[in-house]
């Protein structure tokens, strides 16, 4: 299912590790086995509370873990300036080969959305009223299509948000965004410039298995949790990640943009040689900005713009879907990444 995006197939990787393989440290008979015909995992585990068998072995129990990854989603992302904030819009399309409807679209991390409470204040120990105000204000900056709901919470790092849209109408396994269907209307407002981040999409896997207790423990339990924690299919999207310095500093903003671009090499959406070129121009632009030489700064940034337009003649389209037939992805940089970089640089140069 993830053949087009093998680098994003966290779950596929985990599955390859786990399928049919004994789990280190597991008890005899414990296993997590992928059924290739269904895509489900059969989890056999030792019940630590069960009575030992006559052989002395612990009794095995079994359940089926149905992953929400039997999907081939597409995520479109666009962004535009609305004065002091940026509007991010997302579209979700469920691929024809998907076996499950889509029920969750999540962005994590998101550096901020417009809200009344800074993320840094939402930490363990926060009082209930402030927490409620933060959650409510963040949710108010999100828009969702009918039957979907957008919510935002602080992500596990404590320094960014996790934004998610949930299909609130799903009550059985056929509910959600069906294969071949498209759903637009997922939006958020943020004061931060875009970068590239993962959009996590989850298919409708039904309710979790009903167990008599808390399920497997020990190594087999830990391995199962790896599957559960990565139970999504990731796609790249434009997400707010670059905070604009306050007070504004062109040099500092360019540094932050450069730092963001530097992460793209690791994501394999930017060729390292091309990054070296871009980084050289950006470093020169930063130096010019530090010298308060705006014309020189703009000239160096313009080199980046020309470089990217040599790769993509037109970068103003909203659809970053790599399967779009009339838009071919360059191996040097993805179209989405190029659009994001140009948008960010234009903002940095044009900001008064």
């Amino acid at each position, binding site marked *: 299912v993830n053949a087009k995006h093998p680098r994003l197939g966290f779950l596929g990787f985990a599955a390859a590790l786990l399928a049919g393989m004994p789990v280190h440290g597991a*008890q005899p008979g414990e296993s997590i086995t992928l059924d290739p015909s269904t895509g489900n995992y059969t989890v056999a585990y*030792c019940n*630590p*509370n069960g009575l030992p068998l006559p052989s002395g072995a*612990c009794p095995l129990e079994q359940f089926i873990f149905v992953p929400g990854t039997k999907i081939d989603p597409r995520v479109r992302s666009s962004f535009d300036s609305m004065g002091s904030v940026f509007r991010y819009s997302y579209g979700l399309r469920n691929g024809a080969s998907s076996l499950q409807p889509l*029920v*969750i679209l*999540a962005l*994590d991390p998101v550096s901020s959305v417009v809200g009344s409470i800074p993320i840094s204040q*939402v*930490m*363990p*120990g*926060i009082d*209930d009223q402030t*927490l*409620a105000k933060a*959650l*409510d204000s963040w*949710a108010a900056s999100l828009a969702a299509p009918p039957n979907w*709901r957008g*919510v935002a*919470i*602080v*992500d*596990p790092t404590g320094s960014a948000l*996790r934004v*998610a849209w*949930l*299909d*609130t109408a*799903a*009550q*059985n396994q056929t*509910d959600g965004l069906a294969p071949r269907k498209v759903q637009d209307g997922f939006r958020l407002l943020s004061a931060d410039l875009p970068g590239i981040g993962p959009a996590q999409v*989850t298919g409708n896997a*039904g*309710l*979790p*298995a*009903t*167990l*008599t*207790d*808390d*399920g497997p*423990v*020990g*190594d087999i*339990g*830990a391995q199962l*949790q790896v599957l*559960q*924690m990565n*139970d999504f299919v990731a796609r790249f999207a434009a997400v707010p990640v670059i905070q604009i310095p306050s007070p504004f500093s062109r040099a500092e903003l360019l540094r932050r943009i450069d730092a963001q671009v530097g992460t793209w090499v690791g994501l394999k959406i930017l060729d390292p040689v091309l990054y070296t070129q871009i980084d050289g121009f950006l470093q020169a632009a930063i130096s010019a900005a530090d010298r308060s030489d705006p014309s020189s700064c703009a000239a160096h940034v313009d080199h980046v713009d020309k470089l990217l337009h040599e790769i993509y003649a037109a970068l103003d389209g909203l659809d970053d879907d790599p399967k779009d037939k009339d838009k071919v992805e360059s191996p040097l940089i993805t179209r989405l990444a190029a659009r994001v970089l140009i948008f960010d640089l234009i903002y940095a140069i044009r900001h008064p």
Partner: protein
Amino acid sequence: MHFNKGAASVPRVWLLGFIFALLLSATGAKAQSSTYSCTYATSGSISGDTGGVVTVSTTYVEGPDGGPYPALDCIPRLYSCTSGNSCLVVVGGETSQQVLSLNPLSWLFTSNLVFLPNPTCTPVTDTFGDQAFQGYTFTETVPAKSSCGPPPPPPPPPPPQYTVTLSGLGTVVPSPIGFAQPNTLSINATVTDSNGNVAPGIDVHLALSAVNSSGGHQHGDDTSQLRTGTFPGFANTTYDVTTDATGSATTTFYAPSVSGTVLITATCESVTCTQAGPNSINIMVSGLVSLQSSPDFILVGGDLAVQAHPDNHYLTPQALLKAKELAHLWHTFEPAVPVLAYNDASLVWGGTFDIEWNQGGDWVGPHAEHRAGIVIDVRANGTDTAIPPAYFWLFNYYVRQLQGNTLKEGDHFHVRLLGVGQ
């Protein structure tokens, strides 16, 4: 030897205490047909090294049958410089003829018996017309020990005193359940003598005991090794070690999966020793905090009928924040359904949450993931305060949105607030 009114104090009091003990017991009865008694009191004290002065007074008490009384009744007598007891002073309480039989310390009266030559006394006449004496007071000057002849043999040395000190105690996380390796502490016992020198070759006996009601468990047999933890071997709650050349011995404490406070008592097998220093181990998940009630959720459970686990809503700060976020989002965006009813999370110190304690499940049992303060149960049992079945799917998605996940366990959702359960 001479007698004077009054008394002088000298610094050493041990001798006076001895005199007191003798005097207070020195009452007696006449062998003849009358009964009487004498009581004594003293003041002053005597140093064996320098001598000193003591004043002794007596009080005559006539019995109900009256006299006759010999003239020396109730005259105190001092014995000094007795053999082997340098400068001990003993006051007898009877006539010379009867001292040996009436005084329990008669062994002291075998020599150096000294009669008082001129006691100050007041003659009295008893009911039969006999004259007796009532109320003697005399002062005795006791010579210094050096004048009493050869020094006595030195007293036997007191038994050696040792101190055993434990280290390595403190806090340890409850052991995992199942087949995982238990959490351990390396316990060191060091024995020193009264001079602070290390004492090799001392056998030290270690014993574990659990503090009742600790760790949030208001129930159960505290002597169980499942509660106390163990030493090496099979379910050993006691263990013997021998100090090495450095005066130390080390063993391993295997933490139970149950939280609580465990004491280690250290005793020495062949010598007398006193335990010093820390003696307790807290088996706990540190830093758990209590989930307090809120308009966004209700708190349920906790073995309310019997208070076996009265505090069942403890979570890590991070998990607690997630629980509040989940509850607030649910309350805000799903106003048509009840707020979440939060049941068991973890106990105050985490560890095994033995919900079946009253069904033979003390210190064991299910609830395997309720040990670390990162999961919580949410009611889904069809009652008015539960998540309605039609919302099970959505609730699951809300949890997923938090990057948590759920298990459906009979009548409740088991929510891993941080995505993991162990």
